[in-house]
Every structure is written in C-alpha cells, then in structure tokens.
C-alpha cells in the first residue's frame, strides 16, 4: 500500500538571505524582490525529491503551482494537486493547504521553508501527523529541520519503511530583533518528525547509543517521578520532556504552559506569574523543573516568561531541576538564562546537574 505524503513549499523562503535581509516575513518579501532576490526553494525541493529511494512506494499530494506542483513534474513520483494559489503566496496559503491535505488523508507532510513556515505548519496540523522539515529559509533555528536535503529524503524513506516518531521544537524568532543582530527566540510549539537519527549517523561513535529520544525522555521522566517528594510543590515548565514526566505521574500537561504538581496531583494549570505566586502562599517547599530549548539552550527567558525573576528568586537556584534528553544536552555548548534581571541571571550561572536518563546526570554550565 502506497503512503500518501503531502508536499508544501514556501516559494519565498530564503529569498531575503541572498540580498542581505534577515527574512521574508511581511513586507520584507517585496523589498527582497526589489533588491533582485531569486527563489531558492525550487532547487532545494527538487534535490529532496531526487534523493528519495522509495519513489514507487509513495504518492504525493502537492500544493498547486509554485507551492509544490511545479517541482514534482519530473520527479518520477506520482502526484495529485490540491487547492489553488495566486501569484503572491502567504502564510495563510500554507496553513490552508496543509489543513486541506490533512483532511484528504495524508500520512506525512514534507514542507520546505524556514522557521516562519514551520510555525504555519504547526498551526495547521500540530502533532497529528509526522512532518519532514526541509531547511530553505533565512532563519532555520528550529530543531525540527533536517540538516540537508539528502537527510530529508532519508527521513521520507525511513517513514515509508516504518519508523517511530519524536517531537522536535518549532521556535518563534523575532525577525525585527534578528535584523538588529540579536537572536531573540522562544518556543512556539512542536511537530512530529520520523526518529531517524540512526540513519543519519555512521560508525563506532554512534553504536549502542541510538536509543530513541522518546525512550530517553521516558527514562528521565521515570527517574524524576521516582525522586518527587510528596511534600514539595513542583512547577513543570513547557515542553514534551516535562509532558513525559506528567505522563509518568498520570496527569495532563499543558504543552507550552506551566503546570503545578503536589503529591503527584495537578494543582495548577497553564499558570501565569500571579497564579504561581498564589500557590507559593500555600506551599512552602517548591521546585521548578525545566528543559532547555534545543539549539540555543535557554532554560529561562524564552518560552517560559511566567518564570519571572521574582518566581525564580523565591524558589532558589538549589531547587531548580533541569531535565533533557542526552541527545539534546550533548548538542548544547552550555545552558543559558535571560530572565531580564541580571542579578538573578548571575545567581543562576555556574554548573548544574541535568538529568539526562535513568540515574544519569550531566554537569552542564549555565551562562547568562
């Protein structure tokens, strides 16, 4: 049985980069055109399709015109076209077409673009089906992206042969700040991707360490859950690693929010600073559990603004627990904090032991 795979291409992704702009969000697309920018996604899309080995085992459902159709004609892969797009494409087109593809029963979605496109796909399909994110934008900081077009093709092949999936982060990059030379990113959401790390790595260095990140998260979650003291309030930060802890305890978790747990029972959901401080009046002993954002390593200040300097001060550095997969932590040079209060940032700086598996920790430096 052939797999039905969707393909959505953001035809303007990456155009800003070639002419020195830091993205094509909003009116920047027109400016890029005026400066003579040429689209880079056609070549990238054709590159991915040419490297897919199991062409006879898939059928593509593609967006019309330059959002997909134009690049698949000579690929040797059977395809059908969905929707219509005008001369100028927008984020709304991406969301609308991805949504329609989902309704039409695609089993996986390949998209070509940057962080902005990833956010649109996140809005449209969430965690319902796996995706393969092909990097073609100016900003590709989200860990959801593959390292290359070839790696993307390998992911498609792995999916066809059947593989497990894992969640990867989609970041929201502030394009205005980025143009000003500052990387201001926060966690936007998650997409599912085929867990094909073992296909992308070779040799002795990877042998025996290729436990999937899902298993790794479960291991860490199980260890943390075992260590949880019944007389302490735990604030679980955003992220799937923290959700794994909630799953282990058997409670629901707001994926992008902060939830509170006491005696393994949920006592606060999607809390803001006020909600957290209110809980502090009832619970004396408290701990924060956070996971770093993949790629940049922030544990505070990006995607979890509810952990304000006041909240962090009241909890204390010694009561902050960091948890992450071995893979994610190994790829980070350090952990980072940017709470907006330099004194708090300095207090948090130094080494911390992050839980990266069952009874396994890693001493990592926190920098501000």
């Amino acid at each position, binding site marked *: 049985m052939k797999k039905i795979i969707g393909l959505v291409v953001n035809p303007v992704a990456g155009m800003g980069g070639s002419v020195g702009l830091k993205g094509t969000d909003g009116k920047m697309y027109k400016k890029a055109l005026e400066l003579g920018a040429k689209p880079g996604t056609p070549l990238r899309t054709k590159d991915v399709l040419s490297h897919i080995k199991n062409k006879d085992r898939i059928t593509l459902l593609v967006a019309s015109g330059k959002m997909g159709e134009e690049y698949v004609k000579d690929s040797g892969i059977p395809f059908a076209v969905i929707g219509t797009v005008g001369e100028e494409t927008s984020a709304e087109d991406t969301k609308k077409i991805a949504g329609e593809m989902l309704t039409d029963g695609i089993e996986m979605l390949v998209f070509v673009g940057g962080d902005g496109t990833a956010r649109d796909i996140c809005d449209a399909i969430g965690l319902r089906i796996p995706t393969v994110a092909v990097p073609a934008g100016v900003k590709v900081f989200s860990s959801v992206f593959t390292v290359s077009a070839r790696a993307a093709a390998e992911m498609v092949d792995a999916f066809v042969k059947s593989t497990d999936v894992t969640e990867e982060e989609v970041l929201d990059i502030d394009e205005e700040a980025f143009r000003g030379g500052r990387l201001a990113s926060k966690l936007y959401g998650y997409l599912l991707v085929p867990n094909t790390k073992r296909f992308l790595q070779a040799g002795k*260095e*990877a042998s025996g*360490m290729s436990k999937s990140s899902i298993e790794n998260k479960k291991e860490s979650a199980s260890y943390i859950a075992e260590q949880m003291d019944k007389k302490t309030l735990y604030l679980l930060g955003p992220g799937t690693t923290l959700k794994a802890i909630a799953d282990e305890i058997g409670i629901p978790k707001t994926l992008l929010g902060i939830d509170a747990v006491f005696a393994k029972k949920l006592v606060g959901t999607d809390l803001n600073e006020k909600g957290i401080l209110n809980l502090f009046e009832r619970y004396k002993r408290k701990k924060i559990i956070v996971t770093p954002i993949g790629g940049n390593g922030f544990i505070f200040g990006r995607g979890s603004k509810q952990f304000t300097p006041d909240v962090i001060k009241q909890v204390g550095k010694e009561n902050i627990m960091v948890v992450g997969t071995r893979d994610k932590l*190994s790829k980070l040079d350090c952990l980072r904090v940017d709470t907006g209060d330099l004194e708090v940032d300095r207090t948090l700086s130094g080494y911390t032991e992050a839980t990266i598996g069952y009874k*396994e920790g890693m001493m990592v430096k926190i920098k501000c």
Partner: protein
Amino acid sequence: MNEVPYPPPKKIIEAAQRGLSHLNRYAEPKELEWLQGLLADYSGVSKKHVVLSPGSNLLLREAIHGFSKGRKVITVSPSFLPTIQAAKQFATKLVTIRLSPPEFDLDPELVMDMLNEPSLMIIDNPNNPTGNILLDRKMVEAIVENTDILLVIDEAYYEFSKETFVGMVQDHPNLAITRTMDKAFSLAGARIGYLVAGEAFLDAFSSLYAILPRSSLYAAIEALNNPDYMRDNVTLVIKERERLRKSLNKLGVHVYPSSTNFLLIKTKILDIAKRFKDIGVLISDLSSQLSPGFIRVSIGTREENDVFIAGYTKILEACT
C-alpha cells in the same frame, strides 16, 4: 577507529605466525608473565601492578562492574563510548561532566566539588574525541588524596601525548591507569590492553586472569623487545597530523589542537560525514556527542591524508 595506518615490522608478523602454529594450545603462564614483566619495565612499575587483558576497554568495563556498586561513576562527555555504555549498564548513578568548546577543559573546581561522596572517576587523558589533555599532576594529586575516590585514567594515546601518571600508581592505591598496544604499537588486531593498578584495585582484578592468544602474545613480546618502530610510528603520525592540520587551516577549516593520532574538526557542513562516505572516506560523525558539525578524523598515511584534503576541498567547493 584511530588505528595507526602503518603495519608492524616483519619480525612482529613472524612472531605472531609462530604463535599461530600453536593454535591448539593455550598460552603458558610463564609466557603471560613474560609479557607482564616487559609491560612493567616499559611503564616503570613493578610487575605485580600490571594486569593483562584482551583490549583496554574490557579493563574499563571490569573496573566499572567491580567498583560502581555503592559508588557514583563520574566521567566526562564526550568520552570513549564503551566507558559510558558500561557505566550506564552497571553504575548506581552516572554523572558526566560536559566538556564544552572552544577549550574542552575540565574545570578543577567542579571536579573537586563533585567528590563529596564515594565515587569511581574515569577520565580519558588525552580525551577521545577532543584530543585534549584534561588532567595535570596537581589535579590528579588532589583527586587521589581523597581515599573515598577511585580514579582510573585511560591513557590509550599516551605514546602520542607523552603525558602519563603511571609513576604515581605505586604510591597511590586508589589510582589505576589503562593502556593499550592497539594504537602506537600498530597492534590493533592483536588486542593487548593492560592496567597499571594501585593496591585498591589489585584484589578485584586478581580474578581476571586473561589467557591471551599466543599470536597476540608473541607479537606483543617482540614489539616490546624492539620498540624503535613504535617511536618511528609516533613521529610519523605526529608529523602527518600537523601537516593535515595546516592544510585544513589553509582551507579555512577549524581544527582543534590534538595530543593524539586524530583531529577534532568543526565544520559548517552538517552532513559532511555522509558526503565523505559517498566518496569512500570514512570519518567519525560526532553530532550525537557534540553540537552538529563536529567530526573526528584519524591520521592516515600521507596518501590517505591527501585523499582527505582533496575530498574536503571538493565538498567545500560544492557547498559554496
């Protein structure tokens, strides 16, 4: 796998062949003791401190198996993967210390802070895969002064780094050194590893009586009786290593200093290991241990290194 590319001299191959002609027999205890004595002389310690093994990774595994009950295992990350795998399997708790670029240094203050409970500490010095020296005498002395701590230093690349703490073993019962003849002696296929162990380790290792294959045993004895070729190997490898480093620097590639027979490289081409594989060159992709773009390259013959440089040039051209 960081082998030396030069085969051993003819005399060593002939010695191994002599061993093969006795394949129906185990090695004699006196032959094993002979090798033990030669390794003791080579290391400058008395014979009782030397434990033989088919490969030093088994000694590291045995140390973790034997000494991790009730002790935390502390090591560094990245590190020699079999050590981490064994620690994950046997240790009551494993804590790794993240070595971060650009220096990949081990922070002495952090190390001392971590030694507040009985622990088995295993450090590869130089470190694999960074090639960096992590320990100095002052740090080793400070660690072994705490008798609740057992320290194992993996000196697999000692002949290239010339840095060793083997001389401290006789005075410090809680110190042990693992070494190998796989690398500088060109004997990877013979698998001769050895431990130079302080008194605290010796009891546990007394039951590990490794009967080595005669071919390996005879080759190792011949190598230790005539070790000049090993010194030539080291000189050649270091010369090639530095030539390769300079050539890569000229290409604008970031190469880290190395005290071993391999180089750590940081590249912006994230799928470079795959690109090299496609042109028939195998390198080690470290993206599961360090941030994406890190690779480790073993030093080959001059011709092999030239193929690598030419391949790198082509890949760079294709990516720009």
